[in-house]
C-alpha cells in the first residue's frame, strides 16, 4: 500500500503539470492544479500514512 500511496502522490503532481498543456485559461488551470494538490495530499495522508500506521510501534 505504501507504493500505491507514493504513486498517487506523484500522480497529483503530474495532474498539476498537465494543466499547463490542457488549458490556457488561468481559472481552469487553477482548478486542475488544486485537484492535483488534493490528490497528492490524499496519497500522503490517506494512503501512505495509513499503510505505515498499520504496523505502528504503539500498536505492538
Amino acid at each position, binding site marked *: 500500500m505504501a507504493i500505491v500511496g507514493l504513486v498517487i502522490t506523484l500522480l497529483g503532481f503530474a495532474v*498539476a503539470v498537465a494543466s499547463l498543456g490542457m488549458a490556457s485559461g488561468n481559472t481552469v488551470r487553477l482548478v486542475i492544479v488544486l485537484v492535483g494538490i488534493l490528490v497528492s495530499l490524499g496519497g500522503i495522508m490517506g494512503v501512505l500514512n495509513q499503510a*505505515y500506521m498499520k504496523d505502528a510501534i*504503539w500498536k505492538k
Partner: protein
Amino acid sequence: MKKVLLALVMTWCFGLLGTVFAQTPVPPAEPPAAPAAAPATAVAAAPPAMITDADIKALSGPKAEDKAKGDPGGTITGNVADIPVGDMKKGLTLADVVNQIGQNTIAINFVWTLVAGFLVMFMQAGFAIVETGLCRAKNANHTMMMNFMVYGAGMLAYWLIGFAIQEGGVGAVSNLGGTAPLSSEFAVKLFGKDFGLWGMNGIMLRGSTYDVGVMVMFLFQMVFMDTALTIVTGTAAERWKYSAFIISSIVMGAFTYPLFANWAWGGGWLATLGSSFGLGHGYSDFAGSGVVHAVGGLTAMAMGILIGPRIGKYTRDGKPNAMPGHDITMVLLGCFILAFGWFGFNPGSTLGASANGNLRISSIAVNTMLAGMAGSFAAMCYMWTRYGKPDASMTGNGLLAGLVAITAPSGFVNPTASVIIGVIAGLLVCLSVEFIDRVLRVDDPVGAISVHGTNGIWGVISVGLFADGKSNYAGAWNGVPGSVTGLFYGDGGQLVAQLMGVATLIGFVFTMSFVLNMIIHAVMGQRVSARTELEGLDIPEMGAVAYPDFVLKADAMGME
C-alpha cells in the same frame, strides 16, 4: 479571560484586513502642479556639463600636512587620492573613476550578501539549541551533534554536486557582477516550451566557476541549503540512527534540495512559468518559504512517517502522550537567534544593497520582523485561549512560523500584509501541530513539519495573494517585466504559479524524499533499536552524555 483574548485577536485581525484592502486602490499621487505663469526672468536651462579627463586631473586630495594632523571628523579620509589609477603614465582618468563606481557597487553587494550569509550560518546555532531544548536530556548530545554535523555533511555534498545542479545554469546575476560561468542548464521540451531541469556548471567550483562572483553565490546558497537540511533532524530526533542521518543529509544536500531550488531559483521550469505560460512572474519565492522551508518540512514529514513515532508517544489506543523537552530557556533563546539570523535570510536574498531596487532591503527587514512577532503573538493568544496558559514552546514556534511564512513574500508585500501573513501563520502552526499529532499520528518532537512544512506552503501561497506590485528589482522578475502582483492586487495568474509550486513540493519533493530515505532505510535501517531509544541515544550512539552531572545526581539519589 478566554473570551476577552478571543475578542482581542478577532478585532485585531478584522482591523488589519480592513486596512490592507483599503490600501489597494490608492492612485499614485499627482506631481506638484507647475506654476501658472513662469517668471518672465526665467533663464533657459544650461546644457549638462561634460566631465573630461582634464577635470579629473584637476582634482587634488587633501594636503599632506592636513592629513598629518589626523582626521577626527572624518571629512578628508576617502577622496580622489584613494581611487586606483589604471595606467600610471596617464594618471587618473575618467575611466578610472567610472570603473571605481562600478566596483564599489559590486563590492557593496558582495559585502552585503556575504554578511547576510554569515547571519544565516549562525541560524544553525539557533536550530541546534531549539531542537535540543525540545528533546529530552538523555538525547541532548545526539540531537546537538546532528545539528552540528548536518552543516558539514550537507556542505560537502553541496560543494561536490548540489551547487552545480541548483545554480549551474542560473546565468548572469547582475548584482554580483555577472556570474557568467554559471551558464549551462539541462532542459527538455514539454508543451512546446523549455523545461529547465538542472544546472551543469560548478561541480566542486572548478574551472571557470573559480570566480569571485560565483563564490559569493555559493556561500549564500550553501547556508540556505543547510537550513533546509537541519529541519529534518528535529522531526526525526530521539530515534534516528546517526550513521543513517549522515547518509540521508548527504543525499538531501546533493540532490533533493538542489533540484527544487534549481526549478525555483536556478532558471528552472517553475521560475519560467511566467515567460513560458503567462502565469504572472512565474513561481516567485523571494527567500525560500518553499525552496528552503517547505522542502525541509516535507522531507521531515517523509522521515516522520517512515521511521515512526517514539516509544511512549502514543498509547495502545492511539492517544498522544506529551513528551516535554528538557530546557525551555534553550528553546526561546534559540528562537531569538533564529529571528536574528532571519535578517540575513530575507533582506540578504536581494543579493545586493546597491542598484537594481535593492534599497527595498529596509522594507524586507521590517516585514520579516513584523510577521515573526505577529506569529508569536497569535500563537500565544491561541494557546492561552484554548489551554488556559500562554505556552512557551508554541509561542516560540509561532515566531518561527511567522518568519517562515514571510520568507517567500517578504520582498513583494507591504507591512500590513506581513502582519496578516504572520497572524495566520501563528494560528496555522498551532492547528497543524494538533492535526499532525492527533489525527495523522506522525511524531514530530519539535513541530518542524508544522513550522516549516505547513507554513512554508502558506508563505508560497501568500505571494500569490498579497504581492502588491510595488517592488521593482531592475524592472523585472524571472524575466517578466514589471513587479510581482498577487490576486488581491489584480493578477490571478501569479496565484496559479504559486500553487504549481505547492503541487510540486507536495507531489514531487515529498515523493522523492520518501523514496530516497526508503532506500537508505532498506540498506542500513534508519531507526535505532528499542533498547537504545529507551536508554537514550547519547551513550549508545555518541559515546557520551550531554550532561554528566545529571547522571551523577541521578545515581546519588538512587535513580536509574
